């Protein structure tokens, strides 16, 4: 049943340097890399050895607990390095790209005729499965689980995030194929949420339940929408897929080729010309970063948006799931009497001599300073102002900190992902690491309950 979701609680973080709607082709990258930390909780097992030649779309490694789940190479070339960390854990795979690309082609699937098992097998084999995530636990979906529904959020509210209405324009065919296929994997509904009044590529698609959403961040997060549309109960699974990943899934189904092409938003106050670039998953960020120019020496390059992304370097590589790269100034400097003088250049949810409430539309140039030290939880009632789910955020965080499994369950940990706590983390006066706390809580819950 389509609904109109209006979110009141929240906070938009308006930052300087949003990407302009113009797209350039990034120069092709010499090396590509897959960062294993993108696949939280998955234990990889190598399918090829160091030095092996792989085609684009050929498996590099697979899920140790589920060998059918393949992770494929975004390019053809030589696997030049398997970087390992403590206890020989694989950290990064580096591939030296061929000049002439060779592509592995699977048999395309006729989605209309194929049954669920055939689609599942195709997605696992073609390397598309890792794009499907599940809740609870916020990990790659268990292929054997039966999701009660599948959710896609096509409403973007995160700061400096890519505008998918722009980047996915004209991809209706791929999106439809992917959504049709996913629809066969669930006895429930495929829910897609689009921004109210936005010209979305999802608007005309069939076989889905289309919802409209409006309101400040985190209205665009899929977790917020699940909580409104069909909250997760204990024992249930729901799957989530990002719109940009649906395009890759759809193209694979239609053509049999895993095409890791991405339109990436390069944004942030450190970027001279924030705009979009087309490149591939795993490409070196410097291949498009310096094309736009960087106007600060001390910057932080982030794979993803500033609230949930991961820290990287210009020589780093585009993450498996990311369609944005944000570059903001590092804030490793002291501020004289920073705690008591009036603040005009930072965002705050209070009015304690902070004045961002005067101009809610103003764009800010925030740096990575924590603006204060880590403390115990003191202030109450402030997280609730930016947390639209029917969950007590501070109590849930505390339950995760003291590892009370029963309480974590009862307070709704099944329904959340770390990203849902990015905004409470942003406004946290005690500077507590909310996302990390939730992540550790989810890992513990998965280990204990499974």
């Amino acid at each position, binding site marked *: 049943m389509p609904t109109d979701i209006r979110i009141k609680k929240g906070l938009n973080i308006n930052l300087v340097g949003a990407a302009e709607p113009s797209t350039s082709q990034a120069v092709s990258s010499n090396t590509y890399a897959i960062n294993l930390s993108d696949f939280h909780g998955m234990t990889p097992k190598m399918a090829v050895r160091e030095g092996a030649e792989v085609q684009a779309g050929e498996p590099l490694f697979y899920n140790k607990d589920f060998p059918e789940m393949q992770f494929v190479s975004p390019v053809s070339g030589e696997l030049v390095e398997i970087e390992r960390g403590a206890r020989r854990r694989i950290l990064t795979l580096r591939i030296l790209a061929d000049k002439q690309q060779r592509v592995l082609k699977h048999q395309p699937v006729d989605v209309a005729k194929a049954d669920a098992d055939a689609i599942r097998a195709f997605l696992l084999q073609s390397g598309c499965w890792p794009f499907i995530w599940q809740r609870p636990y916020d990990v790659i979906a268990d292929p054997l689980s039966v999701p009660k529904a599948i959710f896609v959020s096509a409403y973007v509210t995160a700061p400096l995030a890519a505008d998918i209405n722009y980047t996915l324009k004209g991809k209706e065919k791929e999106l439809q194929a992917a959504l049709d296929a996913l629809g066969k994997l669930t006895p429930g509904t495929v829910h897609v949420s689009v921004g109210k009044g936005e010209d979305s590529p999802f608007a005309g698609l069939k076989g889905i339940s289309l919802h409209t959403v409006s309101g400040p961040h985190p209205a665009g997060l899929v977790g917020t929408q699940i909580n409104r549309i069909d909250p997760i109960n204990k*024992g249930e699974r729901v799957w989530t897929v990002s719109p940009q990943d649906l395009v890759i899934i759809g193209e694979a189904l239609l053509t049999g080729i895993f095409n890791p092409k991405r339109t990436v938003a390069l944004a942030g106050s450190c970027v001279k010309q924030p705009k979009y670039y087309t490149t591939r998953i795993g490409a070196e960020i410097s291949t498009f970063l310096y094309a736009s120019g960087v106007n600060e020496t001390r910057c932080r390059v982030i794979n993803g948006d*500033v609230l949930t992304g991961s820290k990287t370097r210009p020589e780093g590589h585009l993450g498996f799931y990311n369609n944005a790269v944000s570059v903001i100034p590092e804030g490793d400097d002291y501020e004289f009497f920073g705690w008591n003088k009036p603040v005009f250049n930072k965002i705050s949810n209070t009015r304690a001599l902070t004045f961002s409430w005067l101009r809610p539309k103003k764009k800010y140039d925030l740096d990575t300073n924590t603006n204060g030290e880590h403390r115990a939880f003191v202030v109450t009632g402030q997280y609730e102002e930016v947390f639209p789910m029917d969950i007590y955020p501070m109590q849930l965080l505390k339950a995760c900190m003291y590892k009370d499994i029963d309480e974590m369950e009862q307070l709704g940990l099944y329904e959340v992902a770390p990203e849902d706590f990015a905004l409470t983390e942003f406004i946290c006066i005690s500077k507590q690491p909310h996302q990390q706390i939730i992540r550790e809580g989810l890992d513990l819950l998965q280990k204990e309950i499974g």
Partner: protein
Amino acid sequence: MSHKKLTLKKRLHIIKHSLRGKKMAPAFNAFHTFLFTPDETTHSGSHVRGADDLKRTMNTVILALLPVLVFSFFNTGYQFYAAIDAANGTPRTVDLFGNFLTWENFWLGFTQVLPLLIVSYGVGLLVEFIFAVIKGHEVEEGYLVTGMLVPLIVPVDTPLWMLAVAVVFGVVIGKEVFGGTGMNILNPALTIRAFLFFAYPTWMSGDKVWVHQAVERTGTADAISGETILGSLAQNASYSYSTADMFFGFIPGSVGETSAFLILLGGLFLVFSKIASWRIMLSAVIGALVMGLIFNGVADMGWVGESSRFYGLMSFDFWKHLIVGGLAFGIVYMATDPVTGSQTNRGKWIYGFLIGFISVMIRVFNPAYPEGVFLAILLMNVFAPTIDHYVIRANVRKRLKRLKNATILPQADAGKMEELQAETV
């Protein structure tokens, strides 16, 4: 590069790094972070953070207390000189610019209140520093507000050594044993106040302690009186203060509790800045009014006679409870302490209401010490976790009910796994 060319910022940075991991690091960092917000950057999660930290939050409460503190300087002086005039048979009426905001009043109050403030901060912060160095954590900001509240909620002539003993007790037993700021069950400032009240009752209650020197002069030719309005009412005696005096605070009482007007302004500032909970403040006011109305009703119905020792306070106009005694101060600055109060929005309504309600109840039924707000808040501090527990249970029950009505899909079994393996080969 010579050291002379280094800026203060650089020099402190060098000292900070040289002290890293050493015992004295927390003590130095407390001063350093007072001057400079640290150069710390985000490591996990959100890469950008909001502008507020705990120091700013505490500082906002202190700003809301400053007008009350300055007013207390004048009022302490004014009450002293007014009492002398009254003893000489020439009672004063207040004239804001004529006889209230005078240098004479200010200086007397300043010299009386400032030592209380210095002892409160000095002793309290010393204890905090010692604990921080021993336990190796940073000095936390909780005492910045507590230290300001303490001198404002005691009688002006409280001996400094008593205050020092009480502060040590309050900070150690009321806070540090629980783990410091954010972990305590009872409001530290009120723990200090309660300690003074039960350990040294003669200095904390009665009709002589509220005006400077009233105790010392007892029995001499220069004797002065300093009864509070609540004290007079508890003895079914009359008082000579107008409603405006009560509202603006030209009355005897604890150092900073008298001016309902400035407390109201402070409260509005705290609500506007989103630092203190309006839910607690509003519901506490409602609670006090309801209890006051009940007592007024009882008095009007003639259920207690005029000879009853409760009659004076019971028949006191219900809304005036808010502008005499410490109720307004307690509601605005103490009940709203986020650590010891209710932590859920719904719980805050219940918590606040009961504080107002019980405060007025204790006032009326405890004529020996006709003031109840600090006991009511401490009592509700103890019950706040229970209130929250039931509020949160309601949320949990909702989730369980949803689960009960849901049809959970069966998840796949091992047979399916083999089937799938056959398919993908």
